């Protein structure tokens, strides 16, 4: 079997995995620096990191080195094996998301037929790691944080998947490349220059997806699982050193991956207006376009995070079950009717 580069299957897969292994930490660092350190600081009238590198750009690398030097501490009463495995499960869940993200006609690790369905499935694995961390820490704050996270992620996974369904119905495919193609070849009332980004027709789906993604990422206003004023840090309260670093990386990398999914499904993905869908040059330009769009979406996610106060637990559950799920079901029905009629 040979792939797009004309190499053997194993060689091509190793190259793609190598690229993915460089891209994921870089993406996490970039989001962490740009938004978590600098943007949050500016929004709070601070300067943020200044000293390490120009404009403090190397601050997170210095932080990572600091984390690696710290002592690896287990609480005495903890369940050691589960305690150690939990951050790995969370990180694996966010790494697996990157497998299907397309950034060009051939620039994708594996173009799975079930694309978006696979992404939803592996993103749901992170709850497992959070529950494991909360339980194994032998700490009541950690356990409460883990339970809150599980309740929240179960509630918001439904609207997330249902919001995606509208896009799938409109694009006729679960495959992420086919979803990009459907937007690239779509037309807005006969005007086909910029294709038909699904944010126009699926605007409600986009809103539901972004709100649910915010909850899945446990970002404010949905950050009860890690609420520091109530739970001193939630499920990762007992973690230090590189295990905490793994949780941190997973959080930021998942934010990046969800922004990328929103880009692919609602903002036209890597396609540039005016180019053929299969033009080889898009393998180079596509990732750049994707990155710009991802940063815009991630900006919205972090903007909301730094602006809104936290919801109460009952408000959060009510909002998911009584507002988002009925709305997303209505969205599916309307999309289905339009699909059959038009």
């Amino acid at each position, binding site marked *: 079997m040979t792939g797009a580069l004309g190499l053997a299957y194993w060689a091509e897969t190793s190259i793609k995995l190598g690229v993915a292994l460089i891209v994921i930490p870089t993406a996490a660092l970039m989001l962490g620096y740009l938004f978590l350190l600098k943007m949050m600081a500016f929004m709070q009238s601070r300067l943020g990191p200044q000293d390490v590198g120009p404009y403090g750009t190397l601050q997170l690398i210095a932080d990572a080195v600091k984390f690696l030097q710290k002592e690896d501490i287990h609480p005495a009463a903890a369940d050691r094996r589960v305690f150690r495995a939990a951050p790995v499960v969370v990180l694996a869940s966010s790494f697996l998301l990157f497998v299907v993200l397309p950034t060009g006609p051939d620039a994708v690790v594996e173009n799975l037929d079930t694309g978006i369905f696979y992404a939803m499935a592996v993103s749901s*694995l992170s709850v497992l790691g959070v529950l494991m961390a909360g*339980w194994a820490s032998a700490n009541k704050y950690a356990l409460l944080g883990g*339970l809150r996270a599980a309740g929240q992620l179960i509630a918001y996974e439904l609207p997330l998947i249902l919001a995606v369904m509208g896009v799938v119905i409109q694009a006729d495919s679960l495959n992420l490349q086919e979803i990009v193609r459907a937007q690239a070849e779509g037309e807005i009332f006969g005007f086909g220059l910029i294709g038909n980004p699904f944010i126009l027709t699926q605007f409600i789906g986009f809103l539901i997806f972004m709100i649910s993604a915010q909850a899945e990422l446990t970002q404010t206003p949905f950050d009860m699982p890690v609420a520091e004023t109530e739970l001193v840090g939630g499920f990762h309260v007992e973690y230090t050193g590189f295990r905490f670093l793994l949780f941190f990386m997973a959080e930021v990398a998942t934010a990046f991956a969800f922004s990328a999914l929103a880009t692919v499904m609602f903002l036209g993905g890597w396609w540039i207006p005016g180019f053929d869908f299969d033009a080889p040059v898009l393998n180079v330009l596509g990732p750049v376009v994707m990155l710009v769009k991802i940063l815009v979406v991630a900006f919205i996610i972090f903007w909301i995070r730094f602006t809104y106060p936290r919801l109460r637990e009952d408000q959060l559950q009510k909002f998911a079950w009584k507002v988002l799920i009925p709305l997303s079901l209505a969205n599916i029905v309307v999309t289905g009717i339009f699909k059959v009629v038009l």
Partner: protein
Amino acid sequence: MVAQNIAFGIIAAITVAAALGMVTTRNIVHAALFLVAVLGGLAANYVLLTAEFIATTQVLVYIGAVMVLFLFGIMLTRAPIGRIPQMTGATWPVAALSALALGGITVYALIDRFGTDSLATDNTVFRTADVSDSVFSQYIIPFEAVSVLLLAALIGAVVLARRD
């Protein structure tokens, strides 16, 4: 096909080991986590059988939803760390008998139906569209029956949870 056979051997060994761990462990959360490993191993085997959609569904439904609810329920009630004295495994002969009976029936049914059939070796993946086409044409009646069953369960849950 050699690579697939080696992969099957490794996955099967992990799955069986996890299944044994699940029934012998003395901690209820460990048992649930071993069950996660078993279900993950089954999903990996579905991938080897080129049934990508089934594998993804297995991960989404069983690991992502059912097991999370299990763990949520266990931790919400009582889940001490370490050995649980009540979990003595005293009923293991009955459990072993019923597991053997169920395994025997399944193996007999599979051999009786499929015998020496083998998968096509040209590495084709069953496309999701083909799966949905057969669900909504050939298997439409079982599919609708299952939907009605789920609806009944849903209404039952609402009735049970109502307070008035």
